[in-house]
């Protein structure tokens, strides 16, 4: 008996230190995310996986603005990722655009897609919104699929290559995995910073208000529909950037970039990591891709195992990995 209190006492001490660390991470969220991501390639089994986590983490982050912070479920975010990819890819392949222009164009194309889809979907609510966005995203998929002269159709768009990048001060080649990682990292870092600013702004408060109580937000004087639309577009811009980076990362744009599987993955990553938390989408993307990576080595039925893991999380850890950690710390 007498040993048990001592043990728990020790555990509490180390537990407290750990929880202090978590709190520190939560408070300085941008720095924490960036610090973590800058050493990331060295702890991953291979660098392509690290780049994937970076890109899908950004995708899930953008999605989480609508899902976790505003409390609206969209099933059409693949459209923004995919249009970001195709915008960038087409600019490079068909117009020989320089890479900064191509990335910018991808983001803009994704934003315009979000404007149109948002304007059509924002009137419906709840599960209807999810269904309308899903349907609209499928329309985008078929549209791009049919435009095979531009998009490469079923085979995807090949030849999205940018080799040597010369910034005057430094020049590097994206064939070098480490260089590629830090190239992507720079964009994601900037996006994370902007994202955090938006969440901390008065507009970010309106998102929370809408999530908490739409009617009250309206009575306070907020135009809920317009706010939802703007948020949808901002979210689309971030997802578009993720798509643009993915086109450069893969050197091709597979048609799967627009597939509804990807919209589902955004939901899964946000839920796994913790919806409505800043760090959650990155944790979720990491968990998802690592699991996928590990399980495919063991069995070809990896989707089954991933599905089971996902269900266990939704049932027993509804706050997700990072959300549960934050909850445990704040007790």
């Amino acid at each position, binding site marked *: 008996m007498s040993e048990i209190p001592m043990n728990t006492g020790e555990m509490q001490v180390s537990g407290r230190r750990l929880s202090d660390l978590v709190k520190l991470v939560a408070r300085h969220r941008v720095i924490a995310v960036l610090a973590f991501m800058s050493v990331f390639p060295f702890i991953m089994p291979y660098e392509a996986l690290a780049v994937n986590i970076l890109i899908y983490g950004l995708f899930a982050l953008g999605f989480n603005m609508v899902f976790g912070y505003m409390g609206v479920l969209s099933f059409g975010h693949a459209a923004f990722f995919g249009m970001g990819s195709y915008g960038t890819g087409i600019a490079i392949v068909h117009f020989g655009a320089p890479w900064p222009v191509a990335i910018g164009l991808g983001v803009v194309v994704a934003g315009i897609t979000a404007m149109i889809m948002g304007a059509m979907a924002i009137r419906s609510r709840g599960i209807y919104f999810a269904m309308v966005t899903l349907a609209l995203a499928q329309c985008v998929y078929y549209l791009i699929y049919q435009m095979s002269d531009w998009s490469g159709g079923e085979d995807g768009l090949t030849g999205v290559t940018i080799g040597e990048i010369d910034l005057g001060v430094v020049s590097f080649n994206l064939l070098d995995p480490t260089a590629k990682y830090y190239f992507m990292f720079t964009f994601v870092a900037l996006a994370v910073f902007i994202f955090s600013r938006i969440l901390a702004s008065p507009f970010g*408060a309106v998102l929370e208000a809408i999530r908490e*109580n739409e009617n*009250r937000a309206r009575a306070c004087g907020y135009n809920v529909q317009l706010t939802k639309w703007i948020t949808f577009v901002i979210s689309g811009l971030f997802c578009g950037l993720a798509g643009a980076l993915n086109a450069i990362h893969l050197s091709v744009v597979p048609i799967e970039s627009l597939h509804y599987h990807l919209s589902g993955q955004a939901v899964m990553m946000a839920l796994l990591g913790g919806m409505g938390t800043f760090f959650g989408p990155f944790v979720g993307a990491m968990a998802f891709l690592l699991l996928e990576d590990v399980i495919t080595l063991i069995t070809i039925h990896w989707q089954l195992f991933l599905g089971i893991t996902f269900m266990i999380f939704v049932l027993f850890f509804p706050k997700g990995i990072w959300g549960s950690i934050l909850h445990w710390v704040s007790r």
Partner: protein
Amino acid sequence: MNSISASASDFLRAEHVTMRYGGFTALSDVSVSFPKGQLTAIIGPNGAGKGTLFNVLSGAFPPSEGKVIYEGADITGTPQHKFARLGIAKSFQITNVFPQLSAQENVRIAIQALSCRYDIWSPRSGLKAMQEQAAQLLDMVGLTDHHHRLAANLAHGEQRSLEIAMALACDPRLLLLDEPTAGMSPEETVVMMDLITQLASERTVILVEHKMKLVMGICNRLIVLHHGEFLAEGTPDDIRNNDEVRRVYLGQGNH
């Protein structure tokens, strides 16, 4: 009698308002006016149509027929979010706050709605004036010690007070309260009634209540509805001595 009051002294006026839900008529041809600076209570037994009239006046939905005139302008069908900017605020019958935000953030968001709705860049933490204003409003409604508690963790009566603080955020000229004491303990009710009296000294207040006794002591005017129709209006004394009103309320049991 009604035509005399339909003059410039009118602040808010419902003209021939009819509201149908499917085939059911919840309000039929109700015309009432609310003079500036008065505390008016809309009373009537359950199902009289008070809530429906409240929702029409506060812009939750437009009436099937008729108009709502505010400060001389037709506001029928004006979107809900514009009401705060017109100087009209309301509290809901069912408590309606932002549960997972602190009391102070609840009020601050309501204040923010007037000035920066679409600022996506400047940090929220820099809005010191708004935070102070929110704190003052919380003190005013008696939530001095609860600024940093989550709204969800406040007692029922405290949540209702919080809602009033949020309604006051736009410094309304017209305050609409839907059964502000619903579900409150007798002690909380007394405090709330005092607060309402105090608020009514500076602005026009309309409140819906089905317990007649509760409002008799504090309001200047009463409007009585019954079965969706206008039944009577007048001072508390007029209403107390009105035979028809007595019959309606006695038929309902004692309130």
